[in-house]
């Protein structure tokens, strides 16, 4: 990747929305626990819309809300 990582966009993780309470840890970023998948999607969409951010769905089914 060379020096690309220094010049390409840098993202901040604004929030994590998970269904697994074991992954809800203190500190940054904000981590939210959803009760079910539907609620998880709604929470993620609402936060992403409000913050004009992008959503990444991890293979663990957690959602990351990130922004440049």
């Amino acid at each position, binding site marked *: 990747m060379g020096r*690309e990582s220094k*010049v390409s966009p840098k993202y901040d993780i604004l929030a994590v929305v998970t269904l697994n309470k074991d992954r809800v840890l203190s500190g940054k970023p904000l981590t939210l626990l959803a009760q079910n998948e539907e609620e998880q*999607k709604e929470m993620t*969409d609402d936060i*992403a819309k409000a913050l004009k951010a*992008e*959503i*990444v769905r991890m293979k663990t089914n957690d*959602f990351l809300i*990130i922004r440049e």
Partner: protein
Amino acid sequence: MPGKEFLTTSDINVIVTAILIGTFARIITLKEDFRQYPSYPNGYLIHLITGFVAASLGAVALPALLSKNFIAVTFLTLAIQQFRDVRKMEKESLIDLEETEFTYRGKAYIDGISKTFEARNYFSLVVALVTSITIKLVPVKGWLDIIIGIAVGLLLLFLLVRISKGKTIGDIAQVKAGKIEVKGSELFVEGMFITNQLGSDLAQKLFKDEGMAVVIYPNEDHFRINLENYGQRQAALFEATRSLGLKRFHYTRRDFEDGKVVVALVPIKKDMDALIEVVKKCPLLESVKKPNSVMKTNLRGR
């Protein structure tokens, strides 16, 4: 008036003709092309005035020398400083605009553009200087010397424009439409992973329905050095978003295996032919180190 020396009509003819041809050189190199730069109307006026000043400096250099005013020629150093200021001004202006564009031009592209603006002022100066020298040197008088001077100035301008014309991505690579696949939250173009940022259903639908991608295949392996340069890819992406607009999402990715480069985006105007054309015509940046074969310039144009 004793002690005062006035310009002769002949000198005035030389100076005025050279200034006009020098300014004309700036006018025809100040074009608004598909890349849309300069993109701001006031930019025209600024560059025309600086071109006029450059032409004036070139035009009066020879008459100043002939009148044994050798010190006056030192103002050519002023010209160099002025042109550097043009470059600096252009660079600062484009950097200021970075935050308002769909994507960043990138520092490499801005450097290339500002260098071009500086070089075009030298066109004005050199064309005006050569025009005035020619008019003075040709052994014929009357209007014929002026006509010959104009012809030589225009010929020089033609050659300078040809020589300074850079190459484009289309000269060293094939640009083809890329097949978009959205698998869950991941985006692939021609089987190459691009991003996993399509986490929401809306984003996935948007890219499936309206996303576009092109793949750049280098003609030779060593062209990968240019095409995979981050500044070069950013320039291609910028030109794509500038021409077609941008709704959301824009990516460039490179494949380490075969050197292909992908440009993917969701444009406002969905026109694949235009996207291919604009990426093909994106200039190769001078700041990117190139093999000799790429730097070789054809005097007759491409």
